[in-house]
């Protein structure tokens, strides 16, 4: 067989040859088609995936892929091409395709797209995990996930099913643009999701947890199968005896996990500058007070090992800790080079693409509320009747600020004490109205990993501290 090469070489080697191919591709766009801007993002990615249903390994999966995303700006419009190859000739054709498409799109352009200036960077970013997932034998990954499943199923006979998904992704991204930036950056993600269902006399309950890290396989030394498995199982069983909430507006304490999804969904998306420009309610609120004084939000891509962290974004911009809301006033948005130019704002490094099949778009990283000074007991004290919303199931928001967060674990609060367990609650309301009703922020801090969909998937974290809200609409199935 010709050109037999090992996968190891493919992973780390051939850097210089690839760099040359990428430069040639950019030259085609700039010199032949007069692109104002051109970038290429080449990736080689390795994945291991497992799906377990109960104690059955449904399939053990491994994949290898490579490809290039090419983005050009011609006459003020974007052209994008994605191909699953590193072949020089194919890439030259893709560059010409991208330029022609940009031209076609530009025919109806009213306002040409311009990019904020960025400093050229040359860098090589290597990940140094204590436990590199690509070096852990697949048998070990199977045994870790199998123990999760055993712990869940062994917890209680009313647990009827569990599904465990596991993914690790390693590889390298090579980014080059026509402004002199060239970055080689390792990719490393480890993720797992645990689902359990319990059944008792016609009541079905459901519980979910996710684990996610950019540090390495060592995440399972902290979030061990025992700890996470028990958390999932316990919740599914507890809910069997839980009652639905009475609908209506009530005071509520949101746990860091629920605060996180609120900060992410209800506020964060509105502060993604592309969505802000698309008419989010924040557009005419910049520099104004939108939340009570104790509310400060960050989106931070620099937290070591967190699921939403990276060094450079997919436009080659360094990541940073971005202040979004300071003491209740909105002071910043999350940008890519296009929106930073439109707002005349500093670059924040929020442009992310799932892989070479996708264009970079504005995404969150690790988004949270800054802790203040309340203990959990102090938060509870003043609540006569309300809810403690501990763990979320899903959330969604709209540009007008309407949000909904489904809750998988909640309790009543009666006279400052934790009360009965509540099933299938959800909260909803208007983001801005709700932010002004935040009346106390806790001193604890937790970040929770998750995946966010905006036409493509991004790995993120969100969280912060416990937060008390004077009033939020609590709905639940009757």
């Amino acid at each position, binding site marked *: 067989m010709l*050109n037999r*090469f090992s996968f190891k070489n493919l992973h780390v080697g051939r850097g210089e040859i690839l760099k040359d191919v990428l430069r040639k591709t950019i030259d085609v766009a700039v010199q032949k088609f007069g692109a104002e801007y051109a970038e290429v993002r080449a990736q080689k990615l390795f994945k291991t995936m497992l799906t377990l249903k109960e104690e*059955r390994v449904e399939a053990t999966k491994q994949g290898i892929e490579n490809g290039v995303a090419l983005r050009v700006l011609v006459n003020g419009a974007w052209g994008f091409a*994605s191909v*699953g190859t590193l072949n020089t000739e194919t890439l030259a054709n893709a560059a010409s395709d991208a330029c022609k498409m940009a031209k076609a799109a530009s025919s109806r352009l009213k306002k040409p797209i311009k990019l904020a200036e960025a400093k050229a960077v040359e860098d090589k970013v290597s990940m140094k995990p204590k436990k590199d997932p690509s070096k852990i034998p697949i048998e070990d990954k199977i045994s870790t996930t199998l123990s999760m499943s055993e712990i869940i199923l062994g917890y209680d006979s009313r647990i009827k099913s569990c599904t465990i998904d596991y993914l690790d992704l390693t590889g390298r991204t090579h980014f080059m643009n026509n402004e002199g930036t060239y970055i080689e950056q390792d990719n490393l993600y480890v993720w797992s999701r645990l689902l359990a269902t319990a059944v008792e006399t016609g009541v079905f309950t459901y519980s979910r947890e996710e684990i996610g890290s950019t540090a390495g396989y060592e995440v399972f030394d902290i979030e061990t199968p025992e700890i996470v498995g028990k958390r999932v199982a316990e919740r599914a069983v507890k809910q069997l005896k839980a009652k639905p909430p009475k609908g209506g507006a009530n005071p509520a304490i949101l746990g860091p996990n629920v605060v996180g999804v609120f900060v992410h969904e209800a506020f964060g998306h509105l502060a993604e500058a592309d969505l802000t420009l698309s008419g989010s309610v924040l557009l005419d609120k910049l520099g104004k007070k939108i939340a009570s004084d104790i509310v400060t939000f960050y989106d931070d891509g620099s937290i070591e090992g967190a699921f939403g962290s990276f060094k450079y974004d997919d436009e080659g911009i360094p990541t940073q800790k971005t202040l979004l809301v300071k003491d209740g006033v909105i002071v910043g948005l999350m940008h890519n080079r296009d929106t930073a130019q439109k707002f005349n704002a500093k670059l924040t490094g929020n442009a992310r693409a799932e892989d070479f099949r996708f264009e970079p778009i504005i995404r969150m990283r690790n988004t949270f509320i800054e802790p203040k000074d309340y203990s959990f007991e102090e938060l509870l004290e003043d609540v006569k009747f309300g809810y403690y919303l501990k763990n979320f199931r899903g959330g969604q928001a709209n540009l007008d600020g309407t949000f909904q967060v489904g809750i998988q674990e909640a309790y009543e609060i009666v006279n400052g004490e934790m009360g009965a367990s509540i099933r299938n609650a959800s909260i909803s309301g208007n983001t801005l109205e709700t932010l002004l009703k935040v009346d106390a922020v806790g001193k604890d801090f937790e970040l929770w990993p998750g995946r966010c969909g905006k036409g493509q998937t991004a790995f993120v974290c969100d969280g912060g501290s416990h937060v008390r809200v004077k009033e939020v609409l609590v709905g639940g*199935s*009757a």
Partner: protein
Amino acid sequence: MVALKQEEIQGLAEKAVNLAQKRGIDEAEAFVYQGLTTNVIIERGQIARSSRIVDRGLGIRAIVNKAIGFSYTNMLESEAVIEETVLKALRSAKAGKPDKDWHGLPTKRAYPSVTGTYDNKIVELSSEDLVKIASTMLDAAEKSDRRIFPIDGEAGASYLCKAIANSNGVEGFDQGTIIECSLATIAKAEGEVTPVCFEFNIERKYDLKPEWVGKEAARLAASALKAKRTKTKNDSVIFTQFALQQLFYFTLINAVKADYVQREQSVFKGKIGKKVASEVLTICDDGLLDSGIRTWKFDDEGVPQQKTPIIAKGILRNFIYDNYAAKKEGKESTGNASRAGYLSTPTLEATNFHIMPGKKSPEELVSGLREGLLVNYLQGAHSSNPASGEFSVVATPAWKIRDGEVDYATKGAMLAGNIFQVLADISELANNERKIGQLVVPWVLVENVKVVGK
């Protein structure tokens, strides 16, 4: 990047199976997928981008001692990588654990013919043609109401093909086309911003209505202005296709999947032949529906697609099966295996989940109500309890119906209930069915839904 031809795609699948058999794998299956997609994208009121994505690759399932290994790659030019991919599948299988319920890959069965799934005109569309479609849609929206703002949208054309081969002699190739356009709008007036309103059209043949999409997206947003709060009460609710898709995707569709039933995650367990819904409800999973978005000759493990009755006049008739779930019960697969291209192993999915329409027009459905709610879109449906069917979602946009007419837009109303109770409380279906995701469905009127307002 040019498309690989049928012979090349099929050749790859067969080669991979042959390589696997030489390595002493008990059973092997190769799935090759190719997708070419061109899009023109509208951003904040203008056409700003165009993209072309070529994605193709090979996924191999290898079975050794009833343990299943899977491996994929998109590096199809390299013989060495294809061989390595086969080896990885083999190694994965050996690392895995035997599954006592594994009773072999599908065997060869004749494939049916399907209609309305491929149109050469779509394959030949250029980005200039798509710019025209997007412009028509955008112009139609902007002309119809000055208070509306198109925030994003697109016009896209795709050519998709797939080939399958396995060690039981199954082999097949099918190709199809998809064309679509969509527009999301909001309306702004006197400091009020509406929720995002969305309209789209998706077809397998080149028969698209961009002007209608533009007008409708604008009309929806404009009519969502001047929203008012509603009271908490039990109300008659008309769900449009969008709302139904969101409501059913995580609940009803899962409940009829055989694997959910086998794993005690479905409230329909043991209910075949029993009444599970209102008698006005009849549903088929129709993998052969003319021009259906998910119509193919065979599913993603090479089993012929078919039409399966699910609910007939409220009585539960069948569950849907893939090869694994079927053989576990000694049955035949209903052709419901589905994959995310070459990147995944098959999972059990509905094809075209066809909810049979009624006789009344949507206008007649509205005019028959003294009081009610017309719900276009639900927020948070993915946070419902998929096992029990309990949901608690925001209806936005939604409109209050009074004395047989759509009166005003509502703000922040939540709907709460159980999807399986909803099925029992369906009183009428309109005659306006359309394709949306996995569903083909008309507007549906449901009685006695709990609306939580303020």
